[in-house]
C-alpha cells in the first residue's frame, strides 16, 4: 500500500477525523501559561527596550496568578476526569501539584525578575560574546535578557503538563518542554559565564542521555502493553499476556529518565555542577519546581501504572533511595561551596521523598506532596539569601567567605540560620513536619522495606544536620575573613520572595494541618 498517493477530497472526507473531547477549563492553567509565553515572545520583539522588563515581569506574574486561580477553581469544582483522550488526568494530585507549581513559580519569578542587586539583573543579554572582549565589557553595563520570562513560563507550563500527563508520550513531550528552556536558562548567567555555560552543556548532554533511556523504556512498555497510557499499562500488567521482562526493563529505563530529573543517585552527577553554575535564581527555580514536577510524574507512573508490580520494584527503588540519602548526606559534609552544599542536600531530600513514595499508600502520596511544597518554599528562600551575599565578583558562594556574617548582617544571617535549621529538621519548622509526615507514612505501612528506609532516613538526617549547623556556627561564631563580602540590601522582589519562603517554612512547621489536610484530600490518582 502506497502511503503517498494524493488523496482526493472525497477520500479525505472518508477518513474519520474526530477531535477527542477537550476539557478546556481543566487545561486552563497550562493554556494560560503557554499563551502568556507566546505573548512574551512578541513583547520581546516589539516592546521598546526600556519597558520590556516591566512588561514581561507583569505579564508573567499575571499569567501565573491566573493559572493559580484556574487551578483553584478546578479544585473547587472537584473535577476528576481523564481528558484529551486519556492524555491528561485531572485529579487531586494533579491539581495539588499544579497549584504548588504556580505558587512556587511566582516566588521563583520574583527572584528571576530582581534587578536591584545587580545592574541589569542576573542574566546576560548576549551569552555568546567572547568573555573579556570589548563588547563583553560594554554589555556588562547593559540590560539583561528579558527572554528569560517567556522561557520560565514555557518551563512552568511544561511542568504543569508533566504532572497531569497520563500517558508516556505526553509525559515525554512535557518533559522536553520543561527541560529545554531550563538548559538554556542555565547558560545565561551574567557573572562567571563560562562556568554557567559548561553547566548548561553538562545538564543538556546528560539530560538528553536520560531522555533516550526514557524513549527506549517507552518503546518496551508499548511493546508490552500495546498502549502507553498508564491505565493501559496497568491493565496489561494484570493480564500479562506478553513476557513481564519487557514490563520490568521498560519500567527500569523509564525510571532512569525520571530519576535523573529528581537527582537520585546514581543519576545525580549533574546536580552539584548545574546548581553551582546556573544563575542562582534559576537554581532556586530548578530546585523547587523541577523537583515538584519530576516527583509528580514519578509518583503517577509508580502509583497508576505499576502498583501491581510494586513488590518487584520496591527493592530496586528502595536501594536507590538508600543510596540517594547516603550519598547526598555524606558528600554534603565535605562541600565548601554553599550552592554545592544545597545541591547535595537537594539530592538527600530526593531520597526522603522516595521514602514517602515507596510507602505505596494514600498517606505516602499525601506526605510526599506536602514535602514537595514545604521543601520548595524553604529552598527558594535559601537561594534568595545566597543572592544577597556578594562581593565585587558577584555572589560569594565559598563557605569561608560566610564566616562572621552574623555580625555584618544579623537579620540575613538570622533568616539563613532559620532556613538551615528547617533543612536540618528542627521542630517548629516545615522541615520537621514534612520529614515526620513522610517517615510516619512509611512506618504506617509496617513492612520491612519502608521501615529500613526510615531507619536510613533518620540516620542520614542526623549526618546532614552537621553541614547545616556548620554553616550556622560559621556565620555566628567565626571571625570574619579579611575581605568579607557585603550583604546587599534586597530589592522589593527578593524581600517578598524571602518573606514568603520564610513565612511558609514557619507556618507549615507550626500549623501544618490545613495543608496536610489539603494534600490528604487530594491524594488519590484516577486511572
Amino acid at each position, binding site marked *: 500500500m502506497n502511503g503517498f498517493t494524493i488523496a482526493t477530497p472525497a477520500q479525505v472526507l472518508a477518513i474519520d477525523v474526530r477531535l477527542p473531547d477537550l476539557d478546556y477549563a481543566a487545561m486552563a492553567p497550562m493554556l494560560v501559561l503557554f499563551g502568556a509565553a507566546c505573548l512574551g515572545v512578541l513583547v520581546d520583539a516589539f516592546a521598546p527596550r526600556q519597558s520590556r522588563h516591566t512588561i514581561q515581569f507583569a505579564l508573567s506574574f499575571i499569567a501565573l496568578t491566573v493559572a493559580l486561580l484556574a487551578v483553584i477553581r478546578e479544585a473547587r469544582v472537584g473535577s476528576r476526569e481523564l481528558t484529551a483522550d486519556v492524555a491528561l488526568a485531572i485529579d487531586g494530585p494533579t491539581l495539588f501539584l499544579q497549584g504548588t507549581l504556580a505558587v512556587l513559580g511566582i516566588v521563583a519569578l520574583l527572584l528571576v525578575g530582581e534587578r536591584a542587586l545587580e545592574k541589569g539583573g542576573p542574566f546576560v543579554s548576549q551569552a555568546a560574546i567572547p568573555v*573579556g572582549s570589548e563588547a563583553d565589557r560594554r554589555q556588562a553595563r547593559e540590560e539583561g535578557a528579558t527572554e528569560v520570562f517567556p522561557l520560565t513560563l514555557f518551563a512552568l507550563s511544561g511542568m504543569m503538563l508533566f504532572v497531569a500527563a497520563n500517558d508516556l508520550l505526553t509525559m*515525554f513531550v512535557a518533559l522536553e518542554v520543561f527541560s529545554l528552556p531550563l538548559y*538554556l536558562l542555565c*547558560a545565561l548567567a551574567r557573572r562567571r559565564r*563560562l562556568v554557567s555555560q559548561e553547566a*548548561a552543556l553538562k545538564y543538556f548532554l546528560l539530560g*538528553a542521555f536520560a531522555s533516550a533511556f526514557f524513549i*527506549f523504556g*517507552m518503546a518496551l512498555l*508499548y511493546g508490552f502493553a500495546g498502549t502507553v497510557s498508564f491505565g493501559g499499562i496497568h491493565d496489561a500488567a494484570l493480564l500479562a499476556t506478553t513476557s513481564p521482562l519487557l514490563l520490568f526493563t521498560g519500567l527500569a529505563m523509564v525510571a532512569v529518565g525520571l530519576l535523573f530529573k529528581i537527582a537520585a543517585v546514581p543519576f545525580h552527577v549533574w546536580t552539584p555542577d548545574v546548581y553551582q553554575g546556573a544563575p542562582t535564581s534559576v537554581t532556586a527555580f530548578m530546585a523547587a519546581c523541577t523537583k515538584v514536577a519530576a516527583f509528580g510524574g514519578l509518583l503517577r507512573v509508580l502509583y497508576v501504572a505499576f502498583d501491581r508490580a510494586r513488590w518487584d520494584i520496591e527493592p530496586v527503588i528502595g536501594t536507590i533511595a538508600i543510596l540517594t540519602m547516603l550519598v547526598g548526606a555524606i558528600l554534603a559534609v565535605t562541600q565548601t561551596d554553599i550552592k554545592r552544599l544545597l545541591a547535595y542536600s537537594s539530592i538527600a531530600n530526593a531520597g526522603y521523598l522516595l521514602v514517602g513514595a515507596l510507602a505505596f499508600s494514600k498517606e505516602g502520596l499525601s506526605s510526599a506532596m506536602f514535602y514537595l511544597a514545604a521543601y520548595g518554599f524553604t529552598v527558594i528562600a535559601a537561594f534568595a539569601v545566597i543572592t544577597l551575599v556578594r562581593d565585587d565578583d558577584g555572589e560569594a558562594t565559598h563557605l569561608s567567605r560566610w564566616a562572621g556574617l552574623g555580625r555584618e548582617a544579623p537579620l540575613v544571617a538570622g533568616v539563613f540560620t532559620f532556613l538551615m535549621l528547617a533543612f536540618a529538621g528542627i521542630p517548629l519548622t516545615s522541615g520537621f513536619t514534612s520529614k515526620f509526615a513522610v517517615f510516619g507514612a512509611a512506618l504506617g505501612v509496617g513492612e520491612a522495606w519502608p521501615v529500613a528506609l526510615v531507619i536510613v532516613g533518620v540516620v542520614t538526617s542526623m549526618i546532614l544536620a552537621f553541614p547545616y549547623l556548620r554553616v550556622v556556627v560559621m556565620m555566628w561564631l567565626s571571625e570574619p575573613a579579611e575581605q568579607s563580602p557585603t550583604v546587599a540590601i534586597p530589592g522589593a522582589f527578593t524581600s517578598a520572595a524571602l518573606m514568603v519562603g520564610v513565612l511558609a517554612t514557619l507556618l507549615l512547621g507550626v500549623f501544618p494541618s490545613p495543608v496536610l489536610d489539603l494534600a490528604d484530600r487530594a491524594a488519590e490518582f484516577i486511572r
Partner: protein
Amino acid sequence: MEPGYYVVLAAVLFTIGAVGVLIRRNAIVLFMCIELMLNAGNLALVTFSRINGTLDGQIMAFFVMVVAAAEVVIGLAIIMSIFRTRRSASVDDANLLKY
C-alpha cells in the same frame, strides 16, 4: 516477520550509542551517540507498532523525531555559544567542548 531480529537490533544500536556516550568526550560526538540511541528507540517503537498492529508506535516515532530536532537546536546553540564565548578568552582551551 520475526520481531526478535528487530528488537535485538534496536537493543544493540541503543547499546552502541550508550557506550559511545560513556567513552567519548567531544560534545558533538556525544550528541551523535545520543541520536543513535533515540533512533534505536524509534526502531523499537515502529517494530512494536507492527507487532501490535496499532499505529501508535509509528506516531510516537514521529514525536520522537520532532523532539530530537528541537533538542539538536538547543544543544548546538549551547555548544556554539560556548565556543564563541571562549574563542578569545584566556581560559583553559584544552577543556573546550569536553565535559
